[in-house]
């Protein structure tokens, strides 16, 4: 009876943790947090507590790493996936050998089919057996038929397309859909990373907060499509105004942020001024009689070592507010 009550409350705590940290309630994640709240794995608890107390994020990578670290079955599953991936890679190379020779190999094709359909569900021992059988088959059938080449070239093409899709999906998750620049999440992660690095190096780290003036008016007067074009154009100007190591991100609806490593306050303000002037020059909206320039207000602030990151961003935001108060279309520094 007592055991039942205990496990109910653990289940409650697990559900609460998943909710609090925005973690998808998959069986793997549930198992991880059950271990955490169950209290038997001190190392796991210590590690997760360190992440929580450092305001870390439980994103897909972190969750996967936690699984790999603390659950041996997860390590096995990953090893199987890695092995299968390597085998498929090897098979791609066999295609080139096979296409040169051109003999018949229906049996090889069947063996390949068997392998492909059973590979991912197998335990490592069985997988090794399958691989050995397949290697023997392919050695026996080396220099094979068009049938094999075609089948395998198709598999290879499919693998490449899937890999491309995966790469694109990963990229998309870090980018803003409309402008193609970094999104808010990427900005937050990069802010932390760069601030940590700059704390070590002692270099300056500059931040610009860029906000379009009277953006609501732009949308109301010229329509949302025009508003979107303005956003895209500003994103383009920002990207052209910075170096490779700088980060341009869409911070909010009409607000952009720029991170500038190794840039002091004076230089940061100069970059801001450049952007302000280029935008003013390039963006005119309206009919021939009634031309309105779209302008931006900009706030600048350099990271103060040991300062909480939200405070640094707030200082830049406050400088932006001062720029608005000063009449807009200008740059102010914290």
């Amino acid at each position, binding site marked *: 009876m007592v055991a039942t009550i205990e496990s109910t409350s653990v289940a409650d705590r697990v559900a609460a943790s998943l909710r609090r940290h925005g973690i998808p309630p998959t069986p793997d994640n549930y198992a991880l947090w059950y271990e955490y709240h169950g209290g038997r794995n001190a190392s796991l608890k210590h590690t997760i507590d360190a992440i929580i107390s450092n305001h870390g994020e439980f994103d897909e990578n972190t969750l996967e790493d*936690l699984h790999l670290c603390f659950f041996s079955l997860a390590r096995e599953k990953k090893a199987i996936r890695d092995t299968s991936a390597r085998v498929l890679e090897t098979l791609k190379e066999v295609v080139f050998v096979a296409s040169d020779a051109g003999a018949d190999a229906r049996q090889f094709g069947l063996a390949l089919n068997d392998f492909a359909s059973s590979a991912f569900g197998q335990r490592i021992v069985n997988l090794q057996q399958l691989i050995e059988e397949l290697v023997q088959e392919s050695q026996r059938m080396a220099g094979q038929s068009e049938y094999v080449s075609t089948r395998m070239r198709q598999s290879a093409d499919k693998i490449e397309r899937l890999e491309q899709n995966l790469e694109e999906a990963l990229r998309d998750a870090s980018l803003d859909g409309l402008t193609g620049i970094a999104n808010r999440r990427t900005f937050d992660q990069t802010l*932390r990373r760069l*601030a940590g690095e700059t704390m070590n190096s002692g270099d300056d780290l500059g931040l610009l907060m860029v906000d379009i003036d009277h953006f609501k008016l732009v949308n109301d007067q010229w329509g949302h499509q025009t508003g979107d074009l303005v956003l895209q154009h500003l994103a383009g100007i920002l990207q052209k105004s910075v170096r490779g190591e700088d980060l341009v991100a869409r911070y909010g609806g009409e607000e952009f942020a720029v991170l500038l490593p190794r840039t002091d306050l004076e230089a940061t303000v100069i970059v801001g001024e450049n952007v302000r002037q280029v935008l003013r020059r390039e963006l005119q909206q309206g009919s021939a009689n009634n031309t309105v320039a779209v302008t931006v207000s900009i706030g600048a602030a350099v990271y103060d070592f040991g300062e909480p*990151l939200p405070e640094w961003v707030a200082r830049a935001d406050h400088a932006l507010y001062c720029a608005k108060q000063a009449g807009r279309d200008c740059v102010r520094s914290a």
Partner: protein
Amino acid sequence: MCDQLEIDAAKARGRCLIVDDSPTVRRIAGRILRGFGLEVDEAEDGQLALEACVRSMPGTILLDWNMPVMDGIEFLRALRETDGGDAPRVVLCTTQTDVDHVQQAFDAGADEYIMKPFDAAMLREKVFGVAVGLGAGR
């Protein structure tokens, strides 16, 4: 105030040794910790830190990971093997934020883990073991 009790307890543990190859980190952390009333010493790498500990074991150690000559984990393992090396409260303080590194640190004998960049509140929480602004539970 219960915070003050914790801080007094930390001071009673002894001096704090900051081990980091970055002069900026040593300066900033030193300023913050001295501001809390701790007496602070500095070492640029694990080797110098080990020598300092052998001379006089500190109560608390703020330890960087990546350093020349001897890195943080090597130092930590060596420290825990020396006489009295179990005593200091060791707080790893590093830009490495992934699960592997965190687990390695605890396995090697760290008491706490701070991800750079840190601020005064984080240092206070981890060095003194004071949960700022939080109650008994989270």
